[in-house]
C-alpha cells in the first residue's frame, strides 16, 4: 500500500479498516543470497539498497529481538556531514544526500528536518580547527558556514554570551544538518525492503556461523540453520560478541552512551547546537522534547544504562550555554551500546573469512550514517568491491598505520 495524504483521508473515512501490517512476519527460508545479521537501521538499510539498487531480493534480515530496537531506536537523531578527514567526509556527505531524498525513496515520512547544526567555538585554536574542517567540508561538496557570535545570538537570543566561563567566539554551521524521527527510519527501511521481497525475521538470534574451509556458508540461529551466499554483519554495539563466534577479535570496544530527553516544551531551539567547551549537544524534537546528550560514560559496558556523573556533566554543559534551561526538566535518560573503534571511525569490509562481511565500529556516529552505511554495505556485498566513498574503512588500516582519527585521540576508544 502506498502511503499518502489521500490514503490517510480515505482510511479515516472508511474506519481505518484498510491499513495492513507495515512488513510481513515470514518464516526463515533455507537459503538466501545474502543474510544480513542485525535488524537495526544499518541492516535494514542494507537490505533496502540491496533490493532496490542492486536488484537482489533473495535477502533476509535476521534480528534477535524486534527491529529498530537497538541504537536506531535510542539515539539523539542528529544528521550531519561535518567531518574533517578525507576518509570520512565523502561518506557522510553521501549519507546526507541520501537522507535528503529518503522520504520519497521509502514512501515513509521519517521527518527529516534540516534545521541545521551549529558547533560553538570558544577559543582561537578551536576556530582554526573548525575553519580547517569547514574547508574540508566545502572542498568535499558539503555546505558549511562560519557564523559570528552576533549571528548566532540572533538565532539563539538566550545563549549565554555575557557570563560565560568560556566565551563563545563564533560557530561552524552546517545548515543541511538536522534531525530525523529515528524510529521511522528503521520502519521505513523495513517496510520498503519487505515490499521488495526481503524477509525480515524477528526474534531470531544468531548462535554461530557455519564456516567450512575458510568459507562462511550461513548462520546457525535460534530458529535453525539459514544458508547464505554471503553474510553481512551489522550489529554495532554487539560487534565483538557476534564476531567472536567467527573467531575474530576486533579493534573495537563496547561502551555506554547516555542520552536524555526533557519534558515537552514549546519550541525554543531552532536547530542542533553543540557546546565546544564541555560535553553537551541538543536539539528539540517535533514533539517538543529537548533531546540532548554528551560524552560516553567511558568504561566498557554492555549494560545499556549509565551513571550519574555523565548526566551531571551534560547538564552542566546545558546550563553553561543555556542558563534558561534550569527549570526545564529532564524526563528520561537511556543508554545505548556503542561500538567504539580504535580510531573513532567505522569499519566496512570483508573479513578474512570468505563470504563474511562486516559493518561496525560506528562509535556514536552511526545514526547519521544509516543510509550511506546501508548503501555502501549493499555495494560491497553485491559487487565485492568497496563503494568509492568508503574505501578507507578497511580492517587493515590499523596494521598499516592509516588510521582515520577525527579527534586525534589515538588507540584509546573511550576518548573518541
Amino acid at each position, binding site marked *: 500500500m502506498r*502511503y499518502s495524504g489521500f490514503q490517510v483521508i480515505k482510511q479515516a473515512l472508511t474506519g481505518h479498516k484498510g491499513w495492513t501490517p507495515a512488513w510481513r512476519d515470514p518464516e526463515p527460508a533455507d537459503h538466501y543470497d545474502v543474510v544480513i545479521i542485525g535488524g537495526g537501521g544499518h541492516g535494514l538499510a542494507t537490505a533496502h539498497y540491496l533490493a532496490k539498487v542492486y536488484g537482489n531480493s533473495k535477502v533476509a534480515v535476521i534480528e534477535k529481538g524486534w527491529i529498530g530496537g537497538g541504537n536506531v531506536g535510542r539515539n539523539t537523531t542528529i544528521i550531519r556531514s561535518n567531518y574533517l578527514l578525507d576518509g570520512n567526509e565523502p561518506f557522510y556527505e553521501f549519507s546526507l544526500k541520501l537522507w535528503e531524498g529518503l522520504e520519497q525513496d521509502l514512501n515513509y515520512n521519517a521527518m527529516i528536518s534540516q534545521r541545521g547544526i551549529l558547533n560553538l567555538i570558544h577559543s582561537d585554536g578551536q576556530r582554526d580547527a573548525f575553519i580547517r574542517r569547514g574547508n574540508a567540508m566545502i572542498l568535499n561538496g558539503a555546505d558549511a558556514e562560519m557564523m559570528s557570535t552576533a549571528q548566532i545570538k540572533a538565532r539563539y537570543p538566550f545563549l549565554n554570551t555575557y557570563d560565560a566561563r568560556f566565551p563563545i567566539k563564533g560557530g561552524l554551521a552546517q545548515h543541511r544538518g538536522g534531525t530525523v524521527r529515528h524510529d521511522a527510519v528503521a520502519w521505513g527501511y523495513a517496510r520498503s525492503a519487505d515490499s521488495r521481497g526481503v524477509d525480515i525475521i524477528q526474534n531470531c538470534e544468531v548462535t554461530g556461523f557455519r564456516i567450512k574451509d575458510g568459507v562462511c556458508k550461513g548462520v546457525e540461529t535460534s530458529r535453525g540453520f539459514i544458508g547464505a551466499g554471503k553474510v553481512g554483519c551489522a550489529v554495532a554495539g554487539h560487534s565483538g560478541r557476534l564476531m567472536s563466534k567467527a573467531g575474530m577479535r576486533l579493534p573495537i570496544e563496547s561502551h555506554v552512551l547516555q542520552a536524555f530527553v526533557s519534558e515537552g516544551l514549546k519550541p525554543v531551539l531552532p536547530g542542533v547546537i553543540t557546546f565546544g567547551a564541555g560535553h553537551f549537544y541538543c536539539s528539540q524534537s517535533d514533539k517538543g522534547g529537548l533531546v540532548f546528550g554528551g560524552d560516553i560514560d567511558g568504561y566498557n559496558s554492555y549494560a545499556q544504562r549509565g551513571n550519574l556523573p555523565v548526566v551531571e556533566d551534560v547538564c552542566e554543559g546545558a546550563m553553561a550555554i543555556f542558563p534558561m534551561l534550569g527549570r526545564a*526538566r529532564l524526563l528520561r535518560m537511556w543508554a545505548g551500546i556503542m561500538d567504539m573503534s580504535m580510531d573513532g571511525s567505522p569499519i566496512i569490509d570483508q573479513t578474512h573469512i570468505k563470504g563474511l562481511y562486516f559493518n561496525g565500529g560506528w562509535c556514536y556516529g552511526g545514526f547519521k550514517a544509516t543510509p550511506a552505511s546501508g548503501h555502501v554495505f549493499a555495494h560491497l556485498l553485491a559487487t565485492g568491491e568497496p563503494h568509492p566513498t568508503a574505501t578507507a574503512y578497511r580492517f587493515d588500516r590499523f596494521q*598499516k598505520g592509516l588510521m582515520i582519527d577525527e579527534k586525534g585521540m589515538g588507540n584509546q576508544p573511550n576518548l573518541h
Partner: protein
Amino acid sequence: MTQPNRISGGQINRETALNFTFDGRSYSGHPGDTLASALLANGVRLMGRSFKYHRPRGPLTAGSEEPNALVELRGGARQEPNTRATTTELFDGLTANSQNRLGSLRFDLLAINDQLSNFLTAGFYYKTFMWPAAFWEKLYEPIIRKAAGLGSLSLKDDSDVYDKGFLHCDLLIVGAGPAGLMAALTAGRSGAEVILADEDFRMGGRLNSETLTVDDQAGTDWAAAMVAELAALPNVRLMPRTTIIGAFDHGIYGAVERVSDHLHTPDPGKPRQILWRIYTQKTVLAAGAIERPIAFENNDRPGIMTASALRTYANRYGVAVDQRAVVFTNNADGHRTARDLNAKGVKVYVIDTRHDAPRSQDYEVLAGATVVDTKGRLGLTFAEIQLADGTARIIECGALGVSGGWNPNVHLTCHQRGRPIWNEPLSAFVPGDVPPGLHICGAAQGDMSTHGALAGGVQAASDALDLNGTMPAIPQAEDAPVEISPFWYVEGCSRAWLDQQNDVTVKDIKLSHQEGFRSVEHLKRYTTLGMATDQGKTSNMGGLAIMAELAGKTIPEVGTTIFRPPYTPVSIGAFAGRHRGQEFHPKRLTPSHDWAAEQGAVIVEAGNWLRAQWFPQPGETTWRESVDREVLATRGSVGVCDVTTLGKVDVQGADAADFLNKIYCNGFAKLPVGKTRYGLMLREDGIAMDDGTAARLAEDHFVVTTTTANALPVYRHMEFVRQCLMPDADVQLISTTEAWAQFAVAGPNSRKVLTHLVDQDISNDAFPFMACANITVCGGLRARLFRISFSGELAYEIAVPTAYGDALIRRIMDVGAPYDITPYGTEALSVMRIEKGHAAGNELNGTTSAQNLGMGRMVSTKKDSIGAVLSRRDGFNQPDDLRQVGIKPVDPADKVPAGAHLMNADGPVDAAHDQGYVTSACYSPILGHHIALGFLKDGGNRMGETMRLVSPLTGVDVGVEICSAHFVDPDGERLRA
C-alpha cells in the same frame, strides 16, 4: 473568598488562608493544600489541555504520577512549565497559568484537532506530508512544530541556585508510608545510619489519604507520631520533599530535595533544590502502589480521576470534587472510596464490573455494570451506564472515580534493567530482578494491606541489615485481601484514553496492532503510549492489556514495560548545581594574575587557566598593535611572560634517566647534570603526544615540563609507564605545576636583567644554552633557572615558590626597567614560536607523527621507547607524508590564515587534490608580513614551491610560497648568545 467544594476534615490548616492565582483569577487555599486540591476546593476542575487533541483536562491523580494537571508555575525567570498541580505545595502568592492552549483554557482554538482526530490517528504523520517533497520543511513541519510541546520556558536565565551533595548511610528507605516508617523505626532502633526519603511534603504515604486506623489511632496521626519518634533518633535523617530519582550502580541513589519550592522565593543564599548522591549499603523500597484507571469512552473529562485520588482529595485535603460522584471499579478498593465519600456526605454510586460485587447499605451499587460514555464539555456532567442487563442509565455527577486495581510502584527496581514479573492474583506486575542490595516491602512488593505494609517494613529493614533480636511490634491495622477481577477497558469503546497526556486511545492500540507494531517497544514508539511526562505510570498497563487481548497472548507474553530514571522529571538546573556561568569550571590563576590585571592585560582562557593574552598600552586601538609591540620589544631588548601554566613533573630516583628514555622517543640517559633537553613524547600508536623539556638537576632528579593542555594526561601516562610497565624501576613522580611561579625572560637583554636578580654567575660560560640549576634570587630565595627558549631569543625561565611569584614579577619589571622590559602575553608568545618554527598544540593535534613534525630522526633506534615500534608502520613512512613547513604569502599584503588548505598552483581545487593545511598563522612584525606553519604532502622536498592557499569557508584564495618553518634565526645563534 469561598471554597465551595471544601468539606470538613483533612490535614490542612484552615486558620491560615493562602492566596493564589490561576490564569489570572484569584483563589485561596490553606497550608497543607496542593495547587490541585486548592483549585478543586474552589470548584475548578479544568486545569489543562491534552497534548495532541487539546482536550480539556483536570487532575487524574493526586500525586506525582499526574499526566494532566500540568501548569506553568510562577512567572518571569522562575517560570516553570509542566509543573504538576497535584504535587505543588500551595504558598501565599503562588501564581500559575494553564498551558498548551491557543486562546483561553476554556476556549482553546486548537481543540479543532479533536474534531479532526479521526485523521490524526497513531502514526498518521509517517504516512503523509511527503508531497511535494519541499513542502515538508517549508509548510508541514513548521505547522507541526508550532503545536509542539506543552508548557513554555521563560527564556530568561533561571534566577535560582542549586546545590549538589553527597550523603552516606547504611540504609536508605524510599517512601515514608506505613512500610517505610516501620522500616525506618526498625533500622533506626538498631543504630544503623538511616535516611528516610519521601517525595511528599508530609510523611505518612497513603495513611494521610485514608480513614484507616493504626493501633486505634487515625492512620495519619499514627504516622505523625512515628515521624516525631524517628526525628528524635540521631542516626535517622528524615528527608521529606525528597524524591529518589534513580538507582545507580553499587548502591548509589540519586535524590532531589526540593528545599525552597514550597516558598515564594528561596531564602538568600539558599538553593532551590539539592541533587543528592546517596551512597548506601542497603535500600528498602517502600514506594507504595499507583492506582490505574479503566478505559471507557470519553474517560478523560475534568472530574474523572482515579478513585484513590478522589479519596485523597476528600480525606487529606477536605475537598469534595463534586457532591455527586460515581465510582467505577473492578475491585474492592473502589468501594473504600465510595465509603469514604459517602461518609463525607457525597452522593455516591458504585459501578462495579463484577457481577458479584458487594452491596452497601449506604449507597447504590450497580454490579456487572460499566460506564460506557460521559458528557460535559469542560467538565463531567453525566455518566452513561450500561447495566448488567444491557439497559442504559444516566447518572448526573461531577466526579467519577475509576479504580482498575493497583500497580506496585516498581519504577526503581527497573533502573538496572530488571524486568518486573506478572502476578496473577494482583493482576499487576511486581518487582522481578532488582538492583543488588534493594529490599522491597509494602504495596511496592504487592502487599496491599496496611498490615502487610507495616509488617513488611519491619521485615525488609531486618533483612536488609541482617538484624537479630527484638523487632518493633507490628501495630494493629486492617489486613484486607486484594479482591480484583481484571477489567481493562469497556467493550466497544474507541475514543477511550489510555495515555491521557499524549492522547493515546484504545483505537490507537488497535491500529498499532493492525499495522504490525505489536511488541511493547513498537507499540510505545508507534503510538507514543507511555512517552509522556509520567513515563506511562497510569497508562502502560492498559495499553499492554489491550495489545495482549488483540494478539491473543497473555500480558507477560506481550512484554513488560520497564522504567528509566528519573522517577519523576528533574530540573536540569539541579543536575548542574553550581556549575554554571563563571563557575562552570574552576579558574586557575597564574601567580602574576593580579599584577597583569593591574596592567590592564586582556585575559584569555587556556583550559582552566586564565592567562594574559596581551597588554594593551594607551593609544593602541587593535590587539595587533599591542602584540606587534610586545614581539618587537622582546626581540629588540627583553620581554617577560608568565609560563607557570606549563605542566611540571618532578622525576626522581635511581632509574629516572631510564624512565625518561622510555617515555621520550629521543635519548636522555646521557644528558649531563645541569643541562636541559627538548623531548618528544609519542603515544604507543606512534603519534606525537606532547613535547617539552627535561632538566637534569641531579643524577637522580629531573624536572619534566609538559604543554599546558596536556599536563594531566601526560602525568597519567607517566604513572602508567612507571606502575604498569616499569614496576620495579626506582622512580618517583609528583606534579609540581602549581608549586613554582615560572617566568620566561627573553630577548638579547634578558641576561642583563636576570643578573640583577640571580645571586649566582649566569654568564654565557657559567650558564650556557640549555643549562639548568637550583639558584637563589634577591639575596637568598631558592629558585630554579633554565636557559631554554621558546621565542628563539636568548632566554631563560626562572622559577620561585609560588607565593613569591607576585613579588618576583614586580621585581623583574623594576630591574628590567632600564632595558624597557616589556611584559608579553600568549599572543606574542605564539607569534614568536611561529616565527621560530616551534610546534605547539595546533601542530601536535593528535594525528601527527614525529615524521610529520620533521622530527622523525629523533625517534631513537638505539633504545626502546613508547611508540617507537608502531611509528615504523608503512602509513607513517609514505613518500608523500605530510611534513611541517613554513608558508608565506606571495603578495606580502596577503594573510595566510590557519585552517586554510594548500592546493597545487595549477591544479583543481577540491578535496581529492588537497595538499595540506595551515595549522598556525600570525603576522610577523619582524618580517613585516604574515607567516604560517602547516603540513604539506612531501613538504620537505617542496621548498620554494608556489602554491594556492584556499579557505572557501572564509573567502580566502591567495598565492603562497613554501619555505622553512624557521623564519627567524634558523641557525639558532641568538639562543647561544
